[in-house]
């Protein structure tokens, strides 16, 4: 196991370097000027040229690449061009917000997805299964940004218009007057702001988990040991919960690893619509402003988490299922 892990991790290094290099070149070849915001349009071309020199943008791309690589290998992400502060500060500001949103959603996604999937498997081909399948597929087919907009329209706007008791704040993480609330009020305020984005993410993602769980569960129910358990005369409840569900959960749980990058980046769309001050918004802004250091750092961390996530998924699989060994 140890050597396997080591091999995988070593193999990931060229992979990550490749990703970072590719992004670096695509980013630097894309038209744009990160210093565009730094001067008035009336500024003379000499001033603009000077600024480009200051930030080293006049150098050949290969020189810039090597300079970036050298800093990067030593763990120096540099300073954001647009915000004038260290990239690491920006990430540390935004990341907790993202994790709060995506982490909560993920917990709900797995709870809801597994419950629905298992229920469907038990009721295979019955009425409930079919309805849940189509409803699940309906949400699965939905662009998250549209679902978000619709929920916002209903619960943040019409709810106010029609004086529903459940009117929710449309965007943001806290109310304007957050600082003046009591501690309990603060918690409530945060929860109210989280309901819409979390619901959007959960509805869109839970459908996938439910489908997967249902498939796994049906596979397991067909196995001999379930037949044996039933033949033994165990109550159906025990058979399903203890034997079938537990075993079909193994592959579902390994999916967690694959969601690791999502925890980091959140979703650009949901972040944009609900103006959630997280990584998604930072990434989109950074690309729009050609903030090279920030884009490089975030994409690299994203790729790193993809690799780690699939590794964790494999390891979880091996831990959960003793038949699988990596040597």
């Amino acid at each position: 196991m140890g050597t396997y892990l080591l091999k995988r991790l070593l193999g990931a290094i060229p992979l990550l370097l490749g990703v970072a290099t590719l992004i670096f070149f695509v980013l630097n070849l894309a038209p744009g000027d990160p210093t565009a915001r730094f001067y008035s349009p009336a500024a003379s071309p000499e001033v603009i040229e000077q600024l480009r020199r200051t930030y080293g943008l006049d150098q050949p791309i290969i020189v810039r690449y090597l300079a970036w690589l050298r800093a990067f290998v030593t763990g120096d992400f540099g300073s954001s061009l647009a915000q004038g502060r260290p990239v690491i500060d920006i990430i540390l500001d935004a990341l907790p917000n993202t994790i709060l949103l995506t982490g909560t959603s993920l917990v709900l996604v797995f709870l809801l997805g597994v419950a629905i999937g298992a229920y469907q498997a038990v009721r295979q081909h019955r009425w409930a299964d079919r309805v849940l399948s189509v409803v699940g597929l309906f949400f699965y087919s939905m662009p998250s940004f549209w679902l978000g907009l619709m929920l916002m329209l209903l619960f943040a706007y019409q709810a106010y218009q029609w004086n529903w008791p459940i009117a929710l704040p449309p965007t943001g993480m806290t109310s304007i007057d957050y600082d003046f609330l009591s501690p309990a009020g603060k918690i409530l305020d945060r929860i109210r702001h989280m309901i819409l984005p979390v619901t959007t993410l959960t509805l869109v993602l839970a459908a996938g988990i439910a489908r997967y769980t249902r498939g796994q569960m049906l596979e397991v129910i067909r196995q001999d040991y379930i037949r044996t358990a039933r033949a033994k005369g165990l109550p159906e409840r025990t058979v399903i919960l203890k034997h079938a569900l537990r075993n079909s959960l193994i592959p579902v749980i390994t999916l967690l690893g694959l969601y690791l990058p999502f925890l980091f980046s959140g979703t650009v769309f949901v972040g944009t619509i609900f103006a959630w001050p997280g990584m998604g918004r930072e990434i989109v802004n950074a690309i729009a402003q050609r903030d090279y250091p920030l884009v490089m750092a975030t994409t690299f961390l994203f790729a790193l988490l993809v690799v780690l996530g699939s590794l964790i998924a494999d390891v979880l699989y091996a831990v959960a299922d003793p038949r699988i060994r990596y040597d």
Partner: protein
Amino acid sequence: MDLALLTEARMRGRIEDVVARSRRRACRLVPLLATLLAAACGRDAGAPRAGGTVIIGMRADFGGFNPITNTDQYTDEIIKYALFTPLVQYDENLEVRPYLAESWELLGDTGVVFRLRRDVRWHDGRPVTAQDVKFTFDLAKDPATASLIGSAYITEVARAEVVDSYTVRFDFVRPHAQALEDFWWAPAPRHLLENVPPADLRNAPFNRAPVGSGPYRFVEWRANDRLVLERNPDFPEALGGPPALERLVFRVVPEPATLLTELLTGGLHVDIPVVPDQAARIESDPNLELFSFPSRTVYFIGWNTRREPFTDARVRRAMTLAIDRQEIIAALLEGYGRPAVSTIPPWSPLYPEGVQPLPYAPQWAAQLLDSAGWTDRNGDGIRENAAGRPLRFTLLSSDAPLNRNVVSVVQGHLRAVGVDAQVRALEFQTLLTQHRARDFDAVLSNWVLDNFQVASAPAALFHSRWADVPRSANRSSFANPRADSLIEAGAAETDPERARRIWAEFTELLNQEQPFTFMFWLDELAGASRSVRGVVMDPRGEFVSIANWSLGGPPAANGR
């Protein structure tokens, strides 16, 4: 942290009461200062409370608070009206009035001597001196800082010289119009910034925790979330004295809809900027006041005068005649805009009243195009020239909603006179690159005036000196000898009456040549709760009276 801030605020509120009461007494006792204190006393008229916190909602975060390197407009206003003290300020008639400089003496057309106030102090207690002014000037002149002050204000100022600690002399490069307006910028503290290399000034930690000299002091800035300022109790009475408000909190909320909701429900006192679609909603609310005032932003379509068919001034003029700008203002801006005819804003003292924008006259446009040789020869509804080349071109815009909408409407208007404009909305950076490289037929763009000096925009946009310089602003490559001489004459003319005549002539020339089709001057919109008193918004900006804001009575909306 938040709790601590709150208690502190309450305590200071009590102290403030005492200070305000004593100021009211000062108003009665010292009639000599009455004129200077008028503003300070006037805000007492509505029986406002002293102290209190005003919460202002903003769509985007601020840039760094460094007077030298900042380029962001709202940040500039905070620097000039709240955190720092510029040498001079504008009054409501856009005339220059003393501020940090209590008086000045023009040395003919060749220079100016400023005498600084002695009672203005940096927020760390040190006095603001002529050394700071010279230090700021020199840094702004250094190309390494790429300072907006350097490129927009002091291009015609050659050098600064410290006469004594509170006297500074500037020498002009040449005689020029509106010379005093070169000095509408605030000095930065030398003792805190002199060790920062000019090239690193933009990333200096100072910018995120500035030490200023203005009526408000910096407290806290959390990126993309909030900026907190508090009153400066030592601010000199002669400049208005310490503000009545205890605290200003700026919140960053990117969604306009959320900002409006918060304003309507009382979470916010001031909402900046409001989008035109929301104006009616604010106006109809008895607790809210809608502010609309002319901005410094003009929208135009720049034609590439080096490319067919826009090499021909007749074609450019026909385009302008075919576009119904009034409809665009009415439908897309809800009427909050005014037609433009040049880069000289309608509210400027030098605005040429007599020159009218070209009218909306599609028939006239059609005739012009006919006479220029563009007629519909094959009956497909699009005009062609003699060689059979259709009158088709690409009209670029950024992907900002207003810009996209404007070009869509323009496309429809041009189609009606047989011109096929292909519309492309590009991401801002891509657009910028193409625009600068002159790789375009036509582009919808806008220009934000850096200051109230009339000459700087025409010189950058229309002088032939820049026609072929990469990355310069004359991206239409407009080159016209008469325009050049008028721009130069206007920039050098120190007599306002003669200057107005020169600019009128220049505007007339633009009307004929139409290197740009000027679309409209945008009106800025802002909403504020009526509980905030003393709010003035005009071309000088949203925050021009921020030192005089106060709270009268509880924010009515909160209990609604």
